[in-house]
């Protein structure tokens, strides 16, 4: 079972590369039972959204 610390690493890397099947399954199981990491994952998606917005001139 992944720790939260390991899960956050994968949640960052999934923004930058395609995770392996084993990593994806491990992460899915982890966020199913860990609400903190589920929140974290949503927040990673939000960070990306905000940065994209900033980069296209919509955040000023």
């Amino acid at each position: 079972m992944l720790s939260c610390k390991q899960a956050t690493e994968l949640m960052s890397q999934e923004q930058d590369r395609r995770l392996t099947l084993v990593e994806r399954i491990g992460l899915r199981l982890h966020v199913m039972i860990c609400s903190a990491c589920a929140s974290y994952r949503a927040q990673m998606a939000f960070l990306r959204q905000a940065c994209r917005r900033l980069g296209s001139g919509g955040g000023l």
Partner: protein
Amino acid sequence: MEPDRHSELNALRPDLLRFARLQLRDAGAAEDAVQETLLAALAGGKQFEQKSSYKTWLISILRNKIIDIIRSQGREAPLSALTDDPEEEAAIEALFEADGHWRKDVRPARWADPEASLEQQQFWRVFEACLDHLPERTARVFMMREVLGLDTGEICKETGISTSNCWVVLHRARLALRACLQQGWFAGAEA
């Protein structure tokens, strides 16, 4: 060039400058990037198509100027030469228990309606302050990835750091940025 376009350009200058400073962390280089952008915009005004806003168009020019500057800086002073920031590492260690679980007082909780924040100017001031607060190497890599939209392969090439190091740096940036937004914005918004 219509006169209203000219005044629009002047009105947008401070925004462009702030954007460039955030990316480059160097007032002189930011000034150069904006100056070149304005010149390019004046010269190529006809290329502007109404399908995007004028500001979006200017930012897209500025983004390319910034990438050019980062490339030339990368050749002169590779980011790989910057060392880890021990404070940054300590801050990350402090988020987790020894067994790798979130420490109770920093466990992430859901953010209420984050999209609504994107429409608030005050949110963007906090967001920029959080980006500005990241250590230099971390910020540079993170902005190249997320704001300028380069992929990790390109970032490695431009900065001379390895792919795995790049992932580590991006992870640190995201942890720190999330924590900063939590503290500086969402914690207050929930109260």
